[in-house]
């Protein structure tokens, strides 16, 4: 219990890489989706905290491209490969995409969670990266932490406790 564990923290609309024994985490995922892309043999993983489905929604230039599912996953894959992962060995785990407020009329804005999940899955498929596990939808916020050594994704929620996928 004496070893010091480093946790790489990923903010909203951000992405980072962790090498074992580091773990990587992001907190308070609501309608946002946390995408982990990892190479289990090389013990390296990247995590992106995606807010919106599509960079085509972009209304101005010079925006943070880590915000959108399509552009963030492209950047994430490139970055994790440049840090030693192999494209053919990449796998993904995803969590988030909840609908935090229950509303009678489901406007486009309120449905952002499921749209984010669809966009993330679509973009991972583009890169031929299989999704090995996912915990998406529902109506609760999630905090996730990934261990590149074991490939486990720990998920914490306020009302439903913790689980590992």
């Amino acid at each position: 219990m004496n070893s010091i564990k480093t946790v790489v923290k990923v903010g909203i609309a951000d992405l980072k890489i962790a090498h074992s024994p580091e773990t990587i985490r992001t907190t308070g995922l609501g309608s946002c989706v946390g995408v982990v892309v990892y190479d289990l043999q090389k013990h390296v993983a990247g995590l992106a905290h995606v807010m919106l489905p599509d960079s085509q929604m972009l209304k101005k230039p010079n925006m943070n491209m880590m915000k959108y599912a399509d552009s963030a996953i492209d950047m994430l894959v490139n970055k994790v490969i440049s840090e030693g992962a192999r494209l053919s060995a990449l796998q993904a785990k995803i969590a988030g995409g909840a609908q935090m407020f229950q509303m009678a009329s489901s406007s486009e804005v309120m449905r952002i969670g499921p749209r984010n999940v669809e966009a993330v899955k679509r973009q991972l498929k583009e890169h031929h990266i299989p999704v090995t596990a996912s915990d998406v939808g529902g109506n609760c916020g999630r905090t996730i932490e990934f261990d590149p050594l074991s490939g486990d994704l720990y998920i914490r929620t306020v009302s439903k406790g913790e689980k590992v996928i």
Partner: protein
Amino acid sequence: MMKKLTNMQRDALREIGNIGSGNAATSMAKMMQNKVEMAVPDLKIIAFEEVMDMLGGAETTVVANMFRINGNAPGTVFLIMSLEEADSIAQHFSGLELFDCQDDPEPLGVSAIQEFANILTSAYVSALADFTGLHMQPSVPLISIDMAGAVISQGLVEISQANDYAIIIDTVMNVPAKKRHGTVKWPVFTASRSGLSTKNIQCTGY
């Protein structure tokens, strides 16, 4: 970009916050049957991540009341309370002796929190509408008891399509200590297409 607001624009935003908060403070004073003090709002332009920090971090459990605004200035308004504040508000207004918003909360108490939020937010929004001449119609309150990051991002999604920053109008309200327990503090967020604002209300001992 957003960072380059003129002094005139800053003053206008601060004044909008001032008017909204003033109205909300009046409503609060009536509901609490107590004097409410209010400070001049502070204006900040900050990144999304810092918005979470203002609420004590993305993972902190909060009680979030959300209102969709329809009309000329569509957007989202949040009234965020801590768990303890929500519990004492529910007890104060519903008459329930025991209320815990994390442990299978009594619907009557939840309803009391929503109504309290509804009155404060309506006072805030109608002051804005009168001042700006814009037609603004808040929806019924929607409530979620969950991580701050998870609930706030629902409102940030809309402005994030146009921006990477949020405008925060931060106001502090105080109910001067009468007798009973400690400090209560809750921020109110106003998100619209053009930005996001909050007033941070503090009330003590009611």
